[in-house]
């Protein structure tokens, strides 16, 4: 029998069963063993109850994505056995003292790996530790990494709790070795330890590396984990974190902090961003550097609070009344989430405009192993004024960018104004209305889009130039499509290439037009019932994407169904 060097593993249970902790223990055991790993939790907006499913893949390759099916299922309750057992291919771990494995409908060869938890641990609550120990054994890994990890995890608990859980994990590990033997899996461990992070953690880390000094936010899933990462680190790294009374306050606080000279950021999801909308235009009008993170979830309205979607594109692009310059960036990987967050601050300050960093729940909340992050990021802040005779904060320049001043600097006092204003910042909206000045000031601000465009991440086709089919996507869909493209092109074939849009505004219409108008056939894969990416592309380039795989059931794209959609488009005349 061929030994498998990758493992897909699902952990199912109810919210409150400790799935996150079990998942983290497994994920970090893999990453510290030098493996790559990827994990996504499909959960519901409840504290206890409901069905929660953690889907994980581990192996030596970085090309991992949410697996269609588990090799190994860890079921923490009866419901998970009833729902998921049929999908497991190699085996099912569960507490056989409390739960019953359905005999019908199991895949051929799938093994009953019932654990006698009551014999292996002091109490049923420790079934997680027993199961994690068993799963590590079945993955073909040693116990030491898990042991060290559990020591850390339970550091804050009493010695009794720590020892009991360690003993339970060891008992599960040993039992699996004795009773189950091998599943034919041996993950190639032994490389250097790898870092694990979520997209939101990467965004927060990128912001911190870039010198973010002020973060204000109101709790909203799936953006809150940025807050949760910042809050305990704020005083250590010189960042003021302010939980605001609502999103309107959050964004306006960030604007105030930026006006005072701090690099400032706020984050929210679609509903909160709707409340922030007016202030995005305020940042545009007052030329205040500001970074806003919008992590999309299922909409509209309260929608699907804990589910992924990509349907806030139009909201982000259309935020606020009137015309003003802004930049919109969409990372597609965890590494890009880090890099784009850092870059956003440079764009915001160099162009003195709001920068919107758009993510989605899948990208922001899944965890994966990452490498090659340097926290020494480039920092550029744009022009500052020197005290002089005739300071004009909004001086008309060729680039549209005017030297800034910060409160506290002598001789550069000015008022930032949400009304239309002249070069000094004095209003020209009411009694001093001046159509000529108004036009000049609007033109000056809009010219900054050229500077922003030059700073945006490049837009390029990936894969073979003349493939039969061009896939089009943005955000978290990218890693899966990249993975499928490589599979489809195996053996030097040129079936598929890929266009992932990372810079959404100013829209790279020249590059996108060049790519799409020379493609043979196009398929958009996006998480939006309204095909918003397709419509944006048509608006900006005139190009109509005929094939569309649209998903808005709340779950990410999975390999099997996406592959089928690609094959269908390939086969379509």
């Amino acid at each position, binding site marked *: 029998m061929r030994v498998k060097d990758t493992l897909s593993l699902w952990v199912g249970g109810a919210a409150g069963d400790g799935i996150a902790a079990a998942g983290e223990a497994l994920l970090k055991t893999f990453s510290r063993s030098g493996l790559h790993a990827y994990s996504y939790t499909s959960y519901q907006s409840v504290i206890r109850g409901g069905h929660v499913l953690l889907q994980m893949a581990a192996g030596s390759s970085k090309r991992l994505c949410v697996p269609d099916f588990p090799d190994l299922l860890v079921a923490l309750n009866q419901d998970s056995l009833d729902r998921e057992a049929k999908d497991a291919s190699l085996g099912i771990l569960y507490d056989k003292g409390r739960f019953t494995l359905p005999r019908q409908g199991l895949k051929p060869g799938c093994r009953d790996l019932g654990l006698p938890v009551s014999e292996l641990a002091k109490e049923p609550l420790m079934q997680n530790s027993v199961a994690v120990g068993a799963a590590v054994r079945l993955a073909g890994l040693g116990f030491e990494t898990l042991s060290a990890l559990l020591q850390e995890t339970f550091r804050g608990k009493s010695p009794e709790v720590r020892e009991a859980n360690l003993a339970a994990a060891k008992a599960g590990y040993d039992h699996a070795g004795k009773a189950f033997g091998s599943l034919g899996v041996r993950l190639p461990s032994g490389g250097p330890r790898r870092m694990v992070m979520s997209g939101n*953690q990467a965004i927060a880390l990128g912001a911190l590396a870039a010198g973010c000094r002020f973060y204000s936010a109101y709790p909203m899933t799936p953006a809150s984990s940025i807050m949760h990462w910042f809050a305990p680190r704020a005083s250590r790294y010189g960042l003021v974190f302010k939980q605001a009374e609502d999103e309107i306050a959050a964004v306006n606080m960030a604007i105030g902090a930026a006006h005072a000279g701090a690099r400032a950021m706020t984050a929210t999801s679609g509903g909160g961003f709707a409340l922030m909308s*007016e202030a995005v235009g305020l940042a545009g009008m007052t030329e205040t550097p500001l970074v806003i993170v919008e992590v999309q979830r299922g909409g509209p309205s309260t929608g699907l609070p804990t589910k992924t979607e990509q349907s806030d594109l139009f909201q982000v692009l259309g935020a606020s009344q009137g015309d003003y310059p802004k930049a919109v960036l969409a990372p597609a990987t965890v590494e890009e989430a880090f890099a784009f967050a850092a870059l956003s601050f440079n764009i915001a300050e160099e162009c003195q405009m709001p920068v919107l960093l758009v993510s989605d729940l899948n990208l922001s909340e899944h965890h994966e192993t990452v490498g090659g992050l340097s926290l020494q990021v480039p920092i550029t802040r744009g022009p500052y004024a020197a005290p002089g005779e005739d300071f004009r904060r909004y001086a008309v320049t060729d680039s549209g960018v005017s030297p800034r001043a910060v409160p506290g600097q002598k001789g550069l006092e000015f008022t930032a104004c949400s009304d239309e204003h002249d070069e000094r910042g004095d209003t020209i909206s009411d009694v001093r209305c001046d159509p000529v000045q108004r036009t000049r000031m609007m033109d000056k601000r809009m010219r900054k889009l050229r500077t922003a465009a030059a700073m945006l991440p490049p837009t390029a086709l990936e894969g073979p130039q003349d493939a039969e089919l061009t896939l089009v996507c943005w955000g978290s869909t990218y890693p899966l499509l990249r993975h499928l493209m490589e599979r489809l092109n195996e053996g030097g074939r040129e079936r598929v290439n890929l266009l992932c849009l990372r810079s959404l505004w100013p829209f790279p219409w020249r590059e996108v037009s060049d790519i799409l108008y020379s493609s043979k056939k196009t398929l958009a894969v996006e998480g939006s019932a309204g095909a918003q990416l397709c419509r944006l592309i048509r608006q900006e380039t005139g190009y109509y994407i005929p094939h569309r795989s649209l998903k808005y059931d709340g779950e990410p794209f999975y390999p099997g169904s996406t592959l089928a959609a690609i094959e269908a488009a390939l086969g379509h005349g």
Partner: protein
Amino acid sequence: MAERTNPKDWKSGVSPDWCPGCGDHGVLNSLQKACSGLGLAAKDVLVVSGIGCSSNLPGFFRSYGFHSLHGRAIPVATGAKLANPALNVIVTGGDGDGYGIGMGHFLHAARRNLDLTYIVMDNQVYGLTTGQASATTCMGVKTRSTPEGVIERPINPLLLALSAGATFVARAYSMEPNDMVEVFKAAISHKGFSLVDCFSPCVTWNKLNTYEWFKSRVAKLDGASHDRTDLAAAMRKALEEDPFPLGVLYERLDVPTYESLDPTLRKHGAVAGLPLGLSPEEQEELLESFL
């Protein structure tokens, strides 16, 4: 104490566009005198406003300013103060801006006891939008939005501020400019959230609460008989309407400001001035934390 400066130094080059006779002229003059009297430097003062007639004030005042969105002056001021607590942050606006659309922010700023000075030019009507009822318009008053008279009771901003935790609450009146200057000086000097509700009559849209109307309805608070550190006494004063007491109703010096409690500000001071980028040690420990 820093030296007095000339009140004229606090005038911007732009003349106020308020109607002749508007109470806001008196508030602007008093604020200029208060800042000069306190010897503040224009570079260290940030005046933040929302939208409305009175919110045009920063444009007429020579210091740093931010004329923000309708109702959002307090959050903008909050962010600026938290980024650089060394700034004297003064928030100015009207009753529509602060007690209507911005009410939530006002109460939260009060409970936080941020060191902000909030000056509300309360004319009991929406002026810039040409005469609709506001949250402080009296019952029965006919406005363009209430042609048969207001049927909602007005809010009491002083009582709201007191109940929300403001540590300095005062009322002033445009026709008593000398007292107003003193109240402003005390409010700006106060360490914590201060509200000064200013009766600032609108001569165009409010035909009830006129200078004539106020003449017999305001009286200077008797400082000798009022304990301004007593919350219950201040609340009783805030309820008095005949006459309305003018002066400082409440002042507590023993409540720490938000800024003095914030762990980051305690450790680093003004974050706006910190150099950017992480040290090699910080980089290493952060990367390590993800392993």
